[in-house]
């Protein structure tokens, strides 16, 4: 592995989840566990029904097209892709058919790696279409849920210009973040809102092209990473063994369980979809004014926030990069800032304990009991010297476990850092009075006795004394003796 030049192309399907209704029907566009509850006659292909384009879905698509530096069409129209399959009751899908005009053509986007370097991904096209129904194949039956049929779907197709599994995932993560930041989609792969097709080929160098193998319907970024790694290995081993002719232009699927890809069909018998322009949707002009209006409404994008976190709050590229990956994390962070939390402390808490906790417990940061308000109580308690950082960490977990206010827990647990001068002086005096021998040794030059005194004070206060204050007072009191 590693000796061949790897070329990867991606097709990323993302459901547009944030429109009120579906892309061509008035059924609700809403994720629900109740099958076949969000459907209108069109979604089941009843005779005489007609598609009506959802303008909001078109607006969101054009925004994505602009963000990806694509060319937008002068006129918008759709095409029929004809095929028989039970997940598509009309037996044609209304879609767009690049290189015919679609919402976005010939764009690019620059992606930042974790190490700070960047790479550019060419966007062949992005087009708007309707999703199919979802199917479950049981032992001897298949069940169909038409809730998903007609949900707007954006398909983004990159040029074959990515050269590692890591870069592929960085790209996908960033595009997902854009969908979320722009309020276009939750882009939640657990809800099946993101599906990827991955093309992988290997060659001796960048001037030659290998045989392209496609993996269909990879449903997670982890899967994309695994599928690419596996394919590079599989193809490389065949090439190493002089059996590269066994690498076929074919469609495979990623098998999560075995961590391998499995052949589905050869590309040679690809279906003829008999595309033609959808006659029920008149071509409509995309005006410059509308495009400009959409451009102006593009919200702050992830990399813009990242740059801001670095320049304004002095965060490292690494930390800022983690914060912006998910809009909810970024929003959580910004809420902390607006509440007055120290930016670096907030960032450390989020990238460390909080994301660790949400990952471990599989919950969303916005659903966490520990809201930015509660985190802010913890952070300011540290800053005010009320609690030590060790106490803070204990408090953090107690808040999450007990679902109680941090103030209450601090009270009930007696978590109070002793910073009161009088109290500390009296404990210090007590310790010094009990250790006259040790004072003697200290005075005779055994300066490490100082730490011993600190330890004794902390022991007496069960760790609640403010160590800075303790040291100050000790120095002071020792000098008097």
């Amino acid at each position, binding site marked *: 592995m590693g000796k061949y030049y790897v070329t990867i192309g991606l097709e990323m399907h993302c459901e547009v989840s944030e429109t009120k209704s579906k892309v061509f029907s008035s059924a609700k566009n809403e994720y629900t566990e109740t099958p076949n509850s969000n459907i209108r006659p069109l979604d*089941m292909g009843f*005779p*005489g029904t007609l598609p*009506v384009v959802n303008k909001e879905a078109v607006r969101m698509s054009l925004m994505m097209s602009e963000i990806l530096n694509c060319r937008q069409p002068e006129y918008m129209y759709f095409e029929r892709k004809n095929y028989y399959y039970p997940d598509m009751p009309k*037996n044609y899908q209304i879609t767009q058919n690049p290189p015919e005009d679609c919402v976005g053509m010939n764009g690019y986007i620059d992606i930042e790696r974790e190490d700070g370097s960047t790479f550019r991904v060419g966007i062949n096209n992005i087009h708007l279409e309707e999703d199919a129904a979802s199917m479950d194949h049981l032992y001897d039956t298949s069940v169909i849920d038409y809730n998903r049929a007609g949900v707007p779907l954006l398909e983004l197709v990159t040029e074959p210009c990515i050269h590692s599994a890591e870069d592929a995932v960085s790209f996908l993560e960033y595009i997902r973040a854009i969908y979320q930041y722009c309020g276009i989609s939750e882009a939640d792969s657990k809800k099946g809102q993101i599906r990827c097709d991955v093309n992988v080929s290997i060659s001796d160098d960048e001037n030659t092209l290998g045989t392209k193998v496609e993996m269909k319907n990879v449903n997670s970024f982890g899967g994309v990473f695994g599928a690419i790694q596996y394919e590079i290995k599989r193809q490389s081993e065949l090439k190493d063994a002089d059996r590269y002719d066994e690498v076929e232009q074919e469609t495979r699927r990623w098998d999560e369980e075995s961590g391998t890809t499995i052949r589905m069909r050869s590309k040679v018998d690809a279906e*003829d979809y008999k595309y*033609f322009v959808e006659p029920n*949707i008149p071509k409509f002009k995309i005006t410059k004014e509308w495009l400009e209006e959409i451009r102006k409404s593009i919200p702050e994008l992830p990399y813009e926030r990242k740059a801001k976190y670095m320049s304004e709050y002095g965060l490292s590229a690494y930390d800022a990069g983690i914060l912006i990956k998910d809009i909810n994390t970024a929003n959580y962070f910004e809420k902390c800032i607006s509440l007055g939390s120290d930016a670096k402390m907030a960032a450390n808490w989020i990238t460390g304990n909080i994301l660790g906790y949400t990952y471990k417990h599989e919950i969303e940061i916005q659903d966490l009991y520990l809201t930015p308000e509660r985190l802010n109580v913890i952070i300011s308690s540290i800053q005010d010297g009320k609690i030590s950082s060790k106490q803070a960490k204990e408090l953090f977990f107690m808040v999450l476990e007990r679902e109680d206010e941090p103030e209450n827990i601090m009270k009930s647990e007696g978590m109070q850092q002793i910073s009161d001068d009088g109290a500390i002086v009296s404990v210090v005096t007590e310790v010094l009075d009990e250790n006259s021998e040790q004072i003697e040794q200290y005075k005779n030059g055994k300066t490490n006795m100082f730490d011993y005194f600190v330890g004794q004070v902390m022991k007496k206060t069960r760790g609640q004394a403010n160590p800075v204050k303790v040291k100050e007072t000790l120095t002071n009191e020792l000098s008097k003796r």
Partner: protein
Amino acid sequence: MKYMGLSITELHEKLKNGEVTSEELVKESLELSHDAQEKCNAFVTILDDTKGGEVTDDLLSGIPFGVKDNYSTKGVLSTGSSNTLNDYVPFFDATAYDNLKKRGAIMVNKAAGDEFGLGGTGTTAHTGVQRNPWNTDHMCAGSSSGSAAAVAAGVYPYALGSDTGDSIRKPAGFCGIVGYKPTYGMISRYGLFPFASSLDHCGVLTRYVRDAAIVVDAMKGIDELDMTSWDSSHIHLNDDLTDDVKGKKLFYIKELCDLDNYPNADEELTAHLNNFHETLKKCESLGMTVDGVHIDQALIRAIPSVYQVISCAEATSNLSNLTGLIFGPRGEGDNYIEMMKDHRTKGFSPLIKRRLIIGSYVLQTENQERYFKNAQRARRLIVDAIKEQFKNYDAMISPVGTGPAKLIDGSKEMLKDDTLALEDQLQIGNFGGFPSITIPNGFVSNLPVGINITGNCYEDQLVLNIAYALESAMEYKGQIAKEVK
């Protein structure tokens, strides 16, 4: 027959002054429906339980009418005259029908026609052949054959039809009545079972031009369920109907309408074209001018093929929702593919299967450029050539078909090549989405023949006015079929 032979305005007046009730009209219409069913096999469903309705100031209130069975009607069997939907009862109404229902119009039956509108003969409905009420040995033409037969037989003053090639205007001609399809998008197609979406039109068959204006006034309107519909609220076809057509300029296509193009013309074609030219003289007597113009012969000859390619291609896709899995009778088989095949094999008539195969063929990647894309280009050229004429003329006038209705038993004879374009030229109206109306203009071989007026898009009023004036200048206005056999 007491009332159903009257016009909508006459019926409305009698309903308003209490001379007759809606209940009585419905009863009469239902009785006549059964007569027409026996004689012409005009209907898929006769709604015997229909009650009379309230009579309001709306001209259509309380008056019975018929609906072609390819309109979706809530709670009423809607088969499209196809076995693939022989048990389908929709749960929503077509917009055009709903618009009439809201005005108090009363549907009494669902009329048969060629399967899903794909046919010009009225011989392919799953319920059998529709017969011409003037002579039951002859066909009605199609596809709105049942609607045309019923209106011609005097079952009611009007019935809804659909028109993809000439499916309202040809049967109107063969049955001696009025058939009008307005500009594309004036009437919403929502709920009309699609045949070829870019060519499909809703429309109406009546016995009076004014009735056509009244009904389309009611059916039309922008519909949020049909993106191709447009706002016509400023158009009032009935209110603005006038027979003052002095100075209007008509043209006809010499390559199609002059007898000397057809050296082998039979008696009927000769009589039909002579009659057409007689009608042109009537137009002139009304103060209009009529010119014969030349249109590129190649374009004219391309009309039937262009229609065949585009309509079949769109139909292949439009009808692919008919699988028997979600609606329609389920096919048999071990898996969904077999079930679907069984449903479609049993459900479709041979004619439709042939067209679906043509449609599939012309859309295949390797054929698409040569057939489908070229047909679309030719369609554009034909429309442009006609629109060029509309710069100088108000409307085009043409004979309907090559003569009167053909014999049902002779329908399998191939049409003669040199008259094919004449037979199919009303398809120009579908290519361009032009408003187009057929009215009766005489008899050939004791059977009615018709003449057609077609205008530029959105010129519906003008087209209707010309037809209205011409109708009044001839003696066929409001005629009801008198069986000649």
